């Protein structure tokens, strides 16, 4: 090497352009699985050059329980409570994705009121998922406690709603093929309306905490940039894809449920960096509040279950179906093959946060170790879903 080291030059360069100042071998560091910022038991083998990440290999499987095999050995109805345990933050959307796939597989109609309830619950789930993600992400950045507690305060209110409706805070097990299990009474609707009306206040608060904060900007802007081409090619979905400026939302594209009936916009990012991914959550929460207000206004009276669907010994006809919804973390799909029996022949989950991790290495290369945690936090993973 002939390069001379310029000792007098002050180091003011952002980490992405920082050249390698250390020579020698790469150091391998295993981050996780007990690291608190890995959102569960996730491990990354990172090769470091000084503090710069030169290689990153995610290691999965610490929470693997072969969900798909369990699904193949359980009846169609029996898999419903197991789907709660996939992404345990968003059991309602997991339920919906599975119910939607089975309804596609068996050709089941869903009554109007049930569709509205599903939209309401899915959007409430999105609210609480995005709120707690903002909290977690800020906590990963070093803002210990405060934003996370604010987020959990709001999440608590929504979980209380879930509990009084479905009987459980997180393992809701609420949806059934052809409808929903319990009807929401008028007082539940009132409570939901009140919470939804007060929710923008929390979003304002969160934005005040985040948007202009110099530390957040320094930690997130230009960190973990993802190009739209790579995002599409790598199958990234959800807020992470839209942060790159790709307008693709399954709610609009497939128009499942009654989403075409509601007016809402798809927020889009521009740079695809961590800051955009973070803001995407705040903006999506605003749209969700809009959908919720419309849905709570319009929800009609009527039955919530399709009476033709059998509860015991439910057997869909032979065939296969792939159903997908826009879960808070991305496109959640279920691929089912029926051989006419009571159990699915093949039961496959397309977990959004697992596939969103495909580009983790590309996002982290050239950044420092401390940025890895922020980037991982902005991907929004839940290990229950990644490892299944």
């Amino acid at each position, binding site marked *: 090497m002939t390069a001379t080291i310029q000792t007098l030059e002050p180091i003011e360069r952002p980490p992405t352009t920082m050249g390698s100042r250390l020579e020698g071998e790469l150091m391998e560091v295993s981050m996780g699985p007990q690291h608190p910022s890995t959102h569960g038991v996730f491990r990354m083998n990172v090769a470091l050059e000084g503090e710069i990440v030169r290689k990153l290999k995610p290691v*999965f*499987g610490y929470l*693997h329980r*072969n969900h*798909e*095999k369990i699904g193949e050995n359980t009846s169609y109805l029996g898999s419903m409570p197991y789907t709660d345990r996939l992404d345990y933050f968003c059991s309602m959307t997991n339920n919906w994705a599975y119910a939607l796939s089975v309804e*596609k*597989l*068996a*050709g089941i109609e869903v009554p109007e009121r049930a569709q509205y309830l599903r939209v309401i619950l899915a959007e409430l789930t999105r609210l609480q998922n995005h709120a707690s993600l903002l909290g977690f992400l800020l906590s990963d950045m070093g803002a210990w406690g405060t934003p996370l507690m604010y987020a959990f305060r709001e999440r608590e209110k929504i979980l209380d709603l879930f509990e009084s409706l479905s009987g459980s805070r997180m393992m809701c097990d609420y949806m059934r093929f052809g409808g929903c299990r319990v009807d929401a009474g008028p007082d539940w609707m009132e409570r939901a309306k009140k919470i939804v009306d007060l929710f923008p206040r929390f979003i304002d608060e969160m934005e005040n905490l985040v948007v202009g904060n110099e530390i957040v900007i320094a930690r997130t802007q230009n960190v973990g940039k993802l190009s739209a081409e*790579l995002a*599409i*090619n*790598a*199958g*990234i*979905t959800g807020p992470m894809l839209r942060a790159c400026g*790709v307008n*693709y939302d399954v709610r609009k*594209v497939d128009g499942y449920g009654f989403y075409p009936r509601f007016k809402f916009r798809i927020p889009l990012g521009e740079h695809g960096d961590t800051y955009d991914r973070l803001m995407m959550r705040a903006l999506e929460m605003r749209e969700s509040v809009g959908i919720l207000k419309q849905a709570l206004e319009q929800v009609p009276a009527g039955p919530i279950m399709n009476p033709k669907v059998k509860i015991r010994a439910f057997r*869909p*006809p*032979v*065939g*296969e*179906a*792939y159903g*997908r919804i826009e879960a808070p973390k991305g*496109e959640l*799909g279920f*691929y089912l*093959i*029926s051989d006419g029996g009571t159990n699915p*022949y*093949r039961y*496959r989950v*397309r977990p959004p946060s*697992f*596939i969103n*991790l*495909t*580009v983790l290495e590309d996002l982290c290369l050239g950044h420092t170790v401390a940025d890895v945690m922020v980037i991982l936090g902005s991907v929004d993973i839940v290990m229950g879903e990644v*490892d*299944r």
Partner: protein
Amino acid sequence: MEPLEQIKARIEAAVPGAKIDIVPNPGPAQQLSLLIDNEHARAVARFLRIDPALRFDFCSNVTGVDWLDRTVKKTVKVKKLVDSEEKEVDETTEEKIPGYLEAVYHLYSMIHKHGPVVIRMRTTDRAQGARLPSLTSIWRSAEFQEREIFDLYGVRFDGHPDLRRILMWDEFVDHPMRKDYREPDDYEYEPTPHDDVLERAKQHCASRPQLDGAEKITDAVKG
């Protein structure tokens, strides 16, 4: 989106020698799939991604399916001369289909916002080293999912950049999602065994007398 027959015809025109079959789906979902041959799989996939009218740039879901050996009974009405009179007679033929492993890809287009088109590839048999071409070079999203198929089904993907086990640990030998996978006999004590768990519980506590099910096994384990 254009109908699947047209897509099939266009692929066959664009990729010479490609053999494409349309796999029927009898269910109400009506999601038919294209069975592509392994030799031309990558060319077909590239065509599906690049063709301006299709542009399947987003490969959403990649998964494996294990099909065991099976016999399909087909009942066909055949006209036959019975007592010099033409009659319709049911004729049942049995067809033996050897087992194979299958990789299923669900493709969508983010630009045209259409889909899904399902493509399938089949291995010749269910042997340990069954091979399929990897489509990771076309769709990066297949990277982890093909690794998962390799891990859980034991299909080796040729051309995959990093084919290792992903969910199971590296020392694990079998492929747990295969239909004939047998769980290791690591029976964990459970107070309410039934069905096959009860059978296993009985084997593990065989030396003790069993009188009536769970409670006795409980006692037996407690000694």
